[in-house]
């Protein structure tokens, strides 16, 4: 028995070694950095240990802006993209002709580069001295006045960011949900039909519980993904996100490390730990909620 155990650990060793060096150690190090005050990465020195980094970050207007942006993004895009993806998947599942074609079309954004898509969105939404942008032309068509979505008011920029995020995350969700829906044994629907079940009730009482594990998976990963948003904002508003007022938490971390205000690994670490705490809390809440509503078979 002893020997068996030793063998087991031996087999696990390579994986554990890599995970330890490249996952556990950096995580731990970030945690340590976040408490080292005035850490200088060049000289590897610091003045003292304490909560100053957190206090600085939490009082930084840029961080608060990033926090607000990230929360708005999460609260709007996660339910919206999951709901829309569910709707589209159910619709896809109920049509027979051209289903494959539509599936392909809906999946295309997933294989398209984020920055390329961002460029297209900019062309659609941006207002320049020479052109109004396609969306503004449409708005004008219906009698509205032009809005600058890229350099204009906050709500317009936020709208574009949310729109873009939903658009970019939906294909994967549709893919997962269509396969989950296809995996529901049709005999349950037949039984429900014979029992006189209406379509709506069939959806809420049979379809939803049956695909709930997948749905839950998408919600959790959706939350985590949205909290970690960064590249989407860059694709739309350029790299100077603080100036645009559209920074995200991850963006703030990046800026603290590398951009012109950069060279502050301690602040970056503190911000990263705060993000980690938020994501952990939300995921725990999700898990608690799911206990009641997710059915694993």
């Amino acid at each position, binding site marked *: 028995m002893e020997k068996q155990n030793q063998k087991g650990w031996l087999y696990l060793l390579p994986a554990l070694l890599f995970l330890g060096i490249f996952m556990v150690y950096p995580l731990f190090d970030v945690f340590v950095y976040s408490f080292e005050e005035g850490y200088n990465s060049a000289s590897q020195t610091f003045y003292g240990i304490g909560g100053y980094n957190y206090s600085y970050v939490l009082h930084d207007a840029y961080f608060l802006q990033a926090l607000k942006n990230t929360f708005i993004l999460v609260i709007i895009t996660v339910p919206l993209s999951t709901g829309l993806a569910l709707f589209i998947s159910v619709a896809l599942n109920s049509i027979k002709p051209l289903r494959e074609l539509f599936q392909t079309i809906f999946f295309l954004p997933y294989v398209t580069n984020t920055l390329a898509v961002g460029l297209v969105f900019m062309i659609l939404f941006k207002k320049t001295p020479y052109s109004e942008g396609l969306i503004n032309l449409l708005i004008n068509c219906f009698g509205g006045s032009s809005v600058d979505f890229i350099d204009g008011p906050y709500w317009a920029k936020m709208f574009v960011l949310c729109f873009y995020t939903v658009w970019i995350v939906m294909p994967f969700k549709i893919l997962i949900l269509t396969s989950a829906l296809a995996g529901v*044994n049709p*005999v*349950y629907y*037949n*039984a*429900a*039909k*014979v*029992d*006189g*079940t*209406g379509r709506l*009730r069939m959806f809420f*009482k*049979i379809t939803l*519980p*049956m695909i*709930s594990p997948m749905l839950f998976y998408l919600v959790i990963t959706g939350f985590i993904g949205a909290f970690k948003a960064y590249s989407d904002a860059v694709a739309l508003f350029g790299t100077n996100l603080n100036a645009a007022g559209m920074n995200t938490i991850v963006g703030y971390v990046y800026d603290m490390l590398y951009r012109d205000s950069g060279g502050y690994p301690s602040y970056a670490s503190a911000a990263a730990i705060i993000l980690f705490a938020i994501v952990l809390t939300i995921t725990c809440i999700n898990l608690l909620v799911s206990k009641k509503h997710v*059915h694993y*078979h």
Partner: protein
Amino acid sequence: MKVTLSHLTKIFPGRGRGNKKKEDVIAVNDFTFEIPDGKLVGLLGPSGCGKSTTLNLICGLQKPTEGQIFFDEEDVTQLTPQKRGVGMVFQNYALYPHLNVEQNIRFPLENLKGADKLSKEEMRARVKEAAGLVQIDELLDRKPAELSGGQQQRVAIARALVKLPLVLLLDEPLSNLDARLRLQTREEIRRIQKETGITTIFVTHDQDEAMSISDLIVVMKDGVVQQIGKPQEVYDNPANLFVAKFLGTPPINLFDGRIQDNALLIGEEKVFTLKDAPNQPVHVGIRPEGFTLSKDGVLSCHLSRPEVMGRDISIVSTHPASQNPVVRSIVDAESCEHLSGDTVRFSLNPRKVFLFASETGNRIPFETL
């Protein structure tokens, strides 16, 4: 409620296009039958004979290509399954895995709308009644995954019965149960059907099952109804070779024979003298219980071995004209005392002997002199 099927036909179009198109499959072919109120009817046939399709047509999950279905006098052919109000038990039970037993049974009741809508109290009473009928009162808060096959089956029956359907449909209800439970459950189904008086149609490929509990059996093959009748009648008077072969354990013994000058010959032995029979080659079917040992019997077989079955003895022998490898006959244990030598001679009971046309397999009635 009386269920009437009128020229019911279901054709599944063949797949593919142009030259590659496969032939259409006629799953049910011109099925006409009136199922009397309150009877238990067994649809019997080998796999792929169209019996499950017939059931799906009756409950509305599939639409017939042609023909009509009537519940009493009402034409329900175009109604959706939701509006037909039948109860159905599926082969794998189709219990909703995320609901417990009580919620599963209550599910159909919660679908009722308008004037039929029930209060919570009424629902609870109905669920209790249905659960009591199939004796699962103690399992109400379990999930389907925590039940044995037999218990799941009872829950499925309770769910089908709870809305008090006028027709109950069972698709291979016993096929997922072990042998002992199967015997027990089929008695149970019979009891429940008798207690409720619901017109019940059940599908099976097991002739024992169909024979033992049905009021009427319908034997099907390749979508075509072969014979309809009371189990004993169908057994005693099979309409054709297929029905004769399909019913009965041990199966019927078949011989190549012919009618010549009003004599029925098996091989070269004359077994019966017939009245007014045209000369023709025939299949001769003899039920195992149609043989009696007798010293001067008309049919002589080569004895392989006797098999003791307790009350009876099964004599296994061979005959050159036999279509089966062995001839199996069941005789009284007492009559075996003078069983000796290589050859056994049997006399035959003409009521257990059937003649079938060698081309069509249709039954040829005959009278002996």
